[in-house]
């Protein structure tokens, strides 16, 4: 068939046509149209992320506090030294890492279970898929308030049920668990949908053949399904890990960062809104950006070339 199909692979494998020295009129027109159609989107994305990040690096090298604008001064890496020797920063960093790792692991296990349920259930498949989308779609702040009230002594059904009389959200460990619960509830469906798309790629024949050869359900899952699903798993884990690392809404509502439950995003926000310290805030912004880049890099290293955006990436 066609143009669309033969073009699609070319788009992801890079343009072999670049090597051609002479371009026909039609090709030239096509290039021009392509560039023109992409220009507005590219411009907005660069203007709103690229420039601020560079500006942020510049700000991070200055002493810049909106309360004392007269003291603005270029101070090289002093802000970085200040942040990196600050125990609050490291506590928040540790908390964020911990929340990310724990919630992504739980989400992956639950998400896989939910994906299998949505894929295989005999009864009410449409209903299950619809209901599973609700946590995905719901406003995070709303969900966070629901959990907050559920765990508030007296008001909440869960607080009364599980630990009558104690205010769990005023202790560090229970608070962190509740934050993980809220994260997991909200994002497991998204994970499950991505995994379900991977599940759909597992050929039924392959499973049947494995079954004939005497593989039990667990062996079929680990030896047949998981390898086929690897690209989908990578995408799901990568997206969720980076998303979990920016956790903000849930913590803001549930504990507002009390008892060392604050995340790096909360710290940056507090610095900006309460401290109005642009120098320190930008330093944190740059550090978070670097951390996220490292996480993404490690993921792609560990999982190899099956990464999205790389050559055989999402095409499967």
């Amino acid at each position: 068939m066609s143009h669309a199909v033969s073009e699609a692979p070319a788009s992801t494998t890079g343009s072999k046509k670049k090597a051609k020295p002479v371009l026909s009129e039609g090709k030239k027109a096509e290039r021009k149209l392509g560039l023109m159609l992409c220009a507005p989107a590219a411009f907005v994305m660069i203007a709103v992320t690229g420039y601020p990040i560079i500006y942020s690096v510049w700000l991070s090298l200055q002493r810049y506090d909106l309360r004392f604008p007269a003291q603005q001064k270029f101070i090289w890496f002093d802000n970085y030294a200040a942040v990196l020797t600050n125990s609050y920063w490291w506590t928040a960093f540790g908390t964020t890492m911990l929340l990310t790792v724990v919630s992504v692991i739980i989400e992956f296990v639950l998400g896989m279970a939910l994906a299998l349920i949505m894929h295989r259930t005999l009864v009410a498949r449409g209903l299950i898929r619809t209901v599973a989308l609700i946590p995905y779609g719901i406003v995070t702040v709303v969900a966070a308030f629901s959990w907050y009230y559920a765990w508030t002594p007296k008001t909440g059904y869960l607080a009364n049920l599980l630990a009558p009389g104690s205010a769990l959200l005023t202790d560090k460990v229970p608070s962190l668990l509740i934050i993980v619960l809220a994260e997991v509830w909200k994002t497991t469906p998204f994970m499950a949908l991505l995994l379900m798309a991977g599940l759909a790629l597992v050929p039924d024949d392959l499973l049947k053949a494995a079954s004939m050869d005497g593989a039990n359900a667990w062996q079929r899952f680990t030896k047949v399904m998981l390898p086929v699903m690897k690209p989908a798993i990578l995408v799901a884990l990568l997206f969720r890990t980076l998303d979990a690392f920016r956790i903000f809404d849930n913590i803001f509502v549930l504990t507002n960062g009390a008892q060392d439950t604050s995340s790096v995003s909360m710290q940056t926000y507090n610095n900006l809104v309460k401290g109005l310290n642009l120098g320190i805030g930008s330093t944190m912004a740059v550090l978070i950006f670097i951390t996220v880049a490292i996480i993404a890099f490690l993921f792609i290293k560990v999982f190899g070339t099956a990464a999205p955006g790389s050559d055989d990436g999402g095409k499967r």
Partner: protein
Amino acid sequence: MVMGGAVTTGRKVRWGLVDILVLVFALVPVLWVVSLSFKTKATLTDGSFIPNEWTLQNYADIFVTTEFIRALVNSIGIAIIATVIAVTLGTMAAYAIARLDFPGKQILVGMSLLIAMFPQVSLVTPLFNIERELGLFDTWPGLILPYITFALPLSIYTLSAFFREIPWELEKAAKMDGATPAQAFRKVIAPLAAPGVFTTAILVFIFCWNDFLFAISLTSTEASRTVPAALSFFTGSSQFEDPTGTISAAAVVITIPIILFVLFFQRRIVAGLTSGAVKG
């Protein structure tokens, strides 16, 4: 779909039980907020899952204050404008990515992926200062711009995946049959592309509707504060009043559109989410 063994009643019952577990998991937190929003002030702290006394007072309370109505107008306006712009720009770019050959396509795809993973908080401090200097702080465009930016990768990915599935040769066929290019587009291509565009619009809208970080950092007054941000500033009608009931009522109101989308467009949303992420 099912391998090994016939579909027995026993299997159905077991799946039914698993399904109920999923339903409870997904719905309980939502129903809890709904329940709170219908409780009277006296019974708010009884901890009962089902209200003992029902009232609509909480809803009446939020709709008499400008605090909530204003935030609702901001939320709706900002989300719709951002969605329209992001989907329009995204459609143009996705069409080019799916159908045309041009230099820099790889870069654009890579850039979208980077932005999809970008830590949004890294932009909060610099954007705060840039918008303050440009006079965009605490205005609608001040929120619409970052929303468009973070919605664009989502639109480009989802739409280009949809566009690749369209049988474009139909366009040629229509032209051969004597249709003008405009007719071919309007009668053949647009109806085929519309579901993808529509799905993308829903996903982008949900994203904008949900945002809290930008909403709370780049606004300071009712002029542009959206509902999620306003919720966190809610106090009762007097400052000594517990805002639980009113927060819950407001929370239910902003959840309604999401529930409607999910109910009516479940299939499309699932298709949109997965095509964008898996097919790349």
